[in-house]
């Protein structure tokens, strides 16, 4: 169907288009504009050029620290989540007893929201740390590894089911042929399984990269950025700039624009890089 009468086209697309305009297009353009202005409410904005962008870096170190913390967190968590998820998927596609029940358990944390998860883990982590006389806010490194632990616990199961689907989709002919050729378990894994699940690897890195950079809920509930703002990642730092610092709304919006550009660049680079590693069998 190449053509559709206009009134039908409107019937199918307008509800989504209007909602999309209200909640995304208008706020996006408006937000872009506000990042170049000084404002407290939206009606009193005055143009200040790139001042907000400069102030995001010069007024304090929060944004730079948050950026570095986020990158460090994302690198560690993307690697760890994918290793754990792939290992679980690899083991759970072997003929192990009760493997469906085990998959069920590993996937479950995923459905629990970030706020709730953060508080669940806060109890456990602080319960351990109190034996040494302090809590998670004592040093940023505890917050860092706490966040790594929580996101691993939450996301590994999700990535695991994607890897499982990919491993099960490997054609049995390829596996048989490799066995006849005398491949051992390690060769099977490194020469057959891993290359053939590359598309799943692309998907999982995409999801983990984008989730790690955008992480907010777990950050808010587990550490709330403490001590000070040392464990606040970019999303939380922007939130605090907007709603916690008077007169910094414009700076907050400028930070948000840079955050958006940064995340888009990372996601595009990552997609290009991993697409080229995929093979066909």
């Amino acid at each position, binding site marked *: *169907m*190449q053509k*559709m*009468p206009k009134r039908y086209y409107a*019937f*199918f*697309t307008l*509800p*989504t*288009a209007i*909602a*999309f305009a*209200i*909640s*995304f297009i208008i706020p*996006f353009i*408006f*937000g872009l504009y*506000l990042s170049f202005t000084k404002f407290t409410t*939206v009606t009193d904005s005055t143009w200040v050029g790139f001042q907000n962008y400069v102030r995001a870096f010069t007024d304090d170190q929060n944004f730079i620290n948050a950026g570095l913390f986020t990158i460090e967190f994302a690198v560690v968590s993307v690697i760890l989540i994918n290793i754990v998820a792939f290992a679980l998927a690899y*083991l*759970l596609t*072997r*003929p*192990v007893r*009760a493997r469906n029940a*085990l998959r069920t*358990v590993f*996937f*479950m944390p995923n*459905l*629990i*929201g*970030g*706020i*709730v998860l953060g*508080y*669940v883990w806060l*109890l*456990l982590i602080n*319960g351990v740390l*109190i034996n040494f006389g302090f809590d998670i806010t004592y040093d940023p490194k505890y917050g860092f590894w706490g966040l790594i632990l929580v996101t691993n616990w939450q996301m590994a199961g999700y990535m695991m089911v*994607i890897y499982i*689907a990919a491993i099960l989709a490997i054609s049995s002919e390829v596996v048989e042929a490799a066995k006849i050729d005398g491949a051992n378990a390690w060769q099977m894994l490194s020469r057959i399984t891993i290359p053939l699940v590359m598309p799943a690897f692309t*998907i999982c890195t995409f999801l983990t990269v984008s989730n790690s*950079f*955008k992480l*907010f*809920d777990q950050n*808010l*509930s587990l550490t709330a950025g403490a001590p000070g703002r040392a464990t606040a990642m970019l*999303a939380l730092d922007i*939130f605090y700039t*907007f709603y916690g610092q008077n007169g910094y709304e414009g700076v907050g*919006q400028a930070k*948000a624009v840079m*955050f*958006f550009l940064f*995340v*888009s660049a990372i996601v595009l680079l990552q997609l290009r890089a991993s697409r080229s590693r995929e093979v066909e069998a």
Partner: protein
Amino acid sequence: MEAQNRARNNILFVCLTAIAVLYMVPLLLVLMNSFKGRFFISDTPFALPNAQTWVGLQNYVTGIAKTGFPLAFAYSLFITVFSVMTIVLFTSMTAWCITRVRSRLSSAFYYLLVFSMIVPFQMVMFTMSKVANVLHLDNPVGIIVLYLGFGAGLSVFIFSGFVKSIPIEIEEAATIDGCNPIQTFFLVVFPVLRPIYITVAILNTMWIWNDYLLPYLTIGSNYKTIPIAVQYLQGGYGSRDIGAMMAMLVLAIIPIVIFYLFLQKYIIEGVVAGAVKG
């Protein structure tokens, strides 16, 4: 060889079961502590309740009183159910239409929707909450419109991928038989899309039920959903009641576990289908 394999798989089974038990420890710990007095939780979370620390359902009573949990549950349920229904209906209509009608308008719309998936929420959170306020969308019904707008990107993307794989001939046959586009969609395309409806519904349910920031910024001061109620308890007035917190965490997790155990098969399939399309 055979016996050796079996032995190895048994060891694997034991190891994996041990990991699975460890996986559940944080949740069981919260459950256990929800029955202990508030002053016995932070310092000794690993101690089992005893005659001195056991308080029965006391934490649940205070927690519910402080957060208005039943109301929060009702708001969460209402917003999630109706947003998801709205999203699957309208985005499937849109996805079918812009996939089938190839025009510059269609592809511009499609790329804008895909683009919106990359944009972090912080980019639009402030302005969006102002727009919602001006348009009086800052209530449990209005927020459905916001969720439709935010959910549209991923949902249209997944539906479009699937619509492309439906042979166009069946739709052409329907047109020749006298169906207008609305009839063609609801009588012919809609039934074929059913498995994808489940996928899209599940992905959106997981997101909206757990979403914190969007409802917090738009309706949070008047209508508390479950995540907002939990967070409110943390930063609430007076000293923080960790006992009540434990009880509310348990209440927040129970509906999810029930939902998961009943729909497990669909949820896992939905996640895989969504990821592969996405």
